[in-house]
């Protein structure tokens, strides 16, 4: 187990190093931020002064060197636009995204897996067919369209839920959270639902396919022959047998949604990191873009690592045999 963790950690460091180079070079290639950062009426002298202060006159490898060196010391640089530490800037937006994404993914997983298991156990029932119809719908309609429909229906026509913003927040450990107030919660419902729909559809399909396969397996037949009740079989056998693909997808979705909740955040004016990154791309706020992408890569590496650990905890064959894989 220790060898597995060390090996994974080394792998993670390598991935992060490579990612930081790719991100840095990639963002450098996007365009020159000087014209945006410096007011058009600035003198040549002021201009050169700013360029020197931002380090934009140095060759690329030197710029990267400074960036990497600072990064290793936990310094992601300062935003050109907001003129504040990038980490602070992203940190201020992260809780909003975090709560939105976690709520929507947990909802999608819990509801999706439950519905999927039901549809897998009773494939011929009317309700199962309804569930599968819902999942096809969730796959095929575009997310932004669903967002607009949700706003039109619940905010505009019915007027029972707010159309955007975070609502009231409560500060816990110095961080503002919406889901702890009733008003905040009412603001989360629509964007979370919007974000959850696709994932819900996916979880339903995944859980149904796994359940159907498991229910036909000899493991379940043998458990039935031993007199186990269907409830016990579902809880103790089937849930475990289907968990590996579900956890994989849960991890991947968690990462990609945290990083790219942009569409939903924009539609619902949710002040999360998604909006921040879009804004910083339009003004070429290079440190924010770089830091954001590096953090996203780090997030994926950490999620993959956690997922692997969870696998090992669930499946004894991975623990004993495939440590070198």
């Amino acid at each position, binding site marked *: 187990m220790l060898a597995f963790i060390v090996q994974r950690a080394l792998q993670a460091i390598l991935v992060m190093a490579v990612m930081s180079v790719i991100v840095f070079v990639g963002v450098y290639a996007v365009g020159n931020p000087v014209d945006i950062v410096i007011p058009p009426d600035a003198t040549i002298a002021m201009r050169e002064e700013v360029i020197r202060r931002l380090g934009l006159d140095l060759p690329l490898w030197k710029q990267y060197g400074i960036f990497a060196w600072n990064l290793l010391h936990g310094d992601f640089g300062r935003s050109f636009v907001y003129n504040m530490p990038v980490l602070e800037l992203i940190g201020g937006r992260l809780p909003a995204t975090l709560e939105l994404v976690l709520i929507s993914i947990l909802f999608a997983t819990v509801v999706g897996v439950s519905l999927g298991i039901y549809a897998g156990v009773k494939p011929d029932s009317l309700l199962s067919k309804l569930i599968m119809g819902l999942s096809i719908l969730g796959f095929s309609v575009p997310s932004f369209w669903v967002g607009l429909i949700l706003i039109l229906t619940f905010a505009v026509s019915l007027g029972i839920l707010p159309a955007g913003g975070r609502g009231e927040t409560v500060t816990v450990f110095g961080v503002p959270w919406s889901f702890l107030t009733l008003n905040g919660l009412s603001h989360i419902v629509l964007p979370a639902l919007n974000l959850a729909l696709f994932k819900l559809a996916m979880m339903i399909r995944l859980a149904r396919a796994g359940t159907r396969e498991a229910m036909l397996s*000899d493991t379940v*037949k043998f458990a039935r*022959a*031993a007199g*186990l*009740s269907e409830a016990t079989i579902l809880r103790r*056998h089937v849930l475990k047998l289907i968990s590996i693909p579900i956890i994989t997808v849960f991890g991947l979705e968690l990462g990609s949604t945290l990083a790219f909740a942009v569409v939903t955040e924009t539609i619902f004016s949710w002040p999360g990191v998604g909006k921040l990154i879009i804004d910083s791309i339009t003004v070429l706020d290079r440190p924010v873009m770089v830091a954001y992408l590096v953090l996203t890569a780090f997030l994926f590496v950490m999620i993959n690592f956690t997922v692997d650990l969870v696998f090992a905890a669930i499946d*004894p064959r991975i623990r004993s045999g495939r440590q070198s894989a």
Partner: protein
Amino acid sequence: MTAVLEVRDLRTEFFTAAGTVRAVNDVSFSLDEGEIIGLVGESGSGKSVTGFSLLGLIDAPGRITGGSVRLNGSELVGMSRGELRRRRGREIAMIFQDPIATLNPLLTIGQQMGLALSAHERLSPKATEDRCTEALERVGIPSARARLKSYPHEFSGGMRQRVAIAIALLHRPKVIVADEPTTALDVSIQAQIVTEMKMLAREFGVAMIWISHDLAVVSGIASRILVMYAGRIVETGTAAEVLRNPIHPYTRGLLDSMPHATRPGEMLRQIPGSMPSMLSLPPGCAFAPRCPRADAACTAVPELVQQGGRSWRCVHPLTQPDHEGATA
């Protein structure tokens, strides 16, 4: 001897989109306490479905459509799901061909045995551990208590099947249905398991239905043999008689295709053709298209003839037993 299991005119059908499959067709037999009978036939002849029917484990689109199964005197056909579940594992148990597939790879042996125990009994963790240890020791698993914490992949194929047998024996059922329990194992292990199960059956007074496509394996353990073809029992008799003097041409064919039945150098004689699809059984005797003795008389389904402790479904039997039960 009293019968622990009596099956009368059992019928199990699958209602599929392609048509109705009568996988078990008017099957009757009885099983005495502690008796081991063998159920033989080619793949697809309905042996497994027969086994599952006895435990009430036929899922949609299948259903038992007729007949009776009496276990320890109570009728199982038409019994409620809950009642059936309470009998499974306690009065009648089943083991399967592939122990890799039957045991859950993600649970320890102890956890799986615990689940099987708690299906019928409430025991303290300590008592559960003792019972499971005891059960593993009975089937010859060394350092049983420690092995409760092991996972299935940490056992060899033979050991895994022993674990499955231990689970089946946990509640000391009267009947065990063993569906090709040695087919997936090495030949040397096969023989061991057969011997051990014979001993266990005697020790516990448990009766067994030993299902196999292999007449050789069955003849090593069963005292009586039922030969199944296309959903029907076509011949029954004591193992010795069926092997020595088969009555049904299908049984003869099975015997001829056994390796040791032929002299060295001689080719194995397989039965020509293959089992007809259960969706389109030929009218009359289902074996007729492959039978060397078939003639016009075989276009009606042959009646079951019972004589001298044997029975058969064939209008042109190869031999006929006399009334004392010895075969001419």
